[in-house]
């Protein structure tokens, strides 16, 4: 399974990431999830979220999750980008892309990865 994690303060370049889909080698399903900062949540308005990470540990924890994905599903590739620092409302903070032979395993692995990330990967956010 190909794997890639990027935790960075740079804006997420979705066009460049989407261009990478051409490289899917006999994978029938590509799932891409984009998490976008919302201006309104629970009735409060925010300008941005300020993301903080324990970067080395976050990268390691993502790789532990990838190890588990590799054991559970026949996945060809996982790429994940998490932006840190100030991310304005309307801008993406998370990109997850899963390539798999069929859609069932792609959806399952993608949803599982996001759920587990929110449990174990040391990243926090503060509204601004």
């Amino acid at each position, binding site marked *: 399974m190909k794997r890639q994690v990027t935790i960075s303060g740079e804006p997420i370049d979705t066009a460049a990431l989407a261009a990478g889909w051409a490289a899917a080698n006999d994978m029938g399903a590509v799932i891409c999830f984009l998490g976008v900062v919302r201006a309104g949540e629970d009735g409060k308005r925010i300008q941005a979220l300020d993301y903080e990470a324990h970067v080395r*540990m*976050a990268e390691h924890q993502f790789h532990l999750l990838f190890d588990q994905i590799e054991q559970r599903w026949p996945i060809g590739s996982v790429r994940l980008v998490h932006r840190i620092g100030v991310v304005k409302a309307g801008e993406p903070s998370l990109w997850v892309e899963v390539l798999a032979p069929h859609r069932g395993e792609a959806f399952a692995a993608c949803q599982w990865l996001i759920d587990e990330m*929110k449990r174990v990967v*040391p*990243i926090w956010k503060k509204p601004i």
Partner: protein
Amino acid sequence: MKITICFYSYFKELTGCAQTSEELADGSKLGDLTAQVFARFPKLSAMQKSTLFAVGVDYQNRDFVLRDGDEVSLFPPVQGG
């Protein structure tokens, strides 16, 4: 032995610092260290039940035996995405 302690998210505000250190007897466990840290930072102590602990880049529990130079992180529940 000397252990480095790092705080993340609002734990930095509760302790007033991002990083500190503690001296401990050889063979001390993670639980010994955290007891010392919570005693030193009463505001943090209120968060004990929800605090997550890592040594280096891995989660560990209170029985984990520390070694000189270990970097311990204390932080609240994570919320990436």
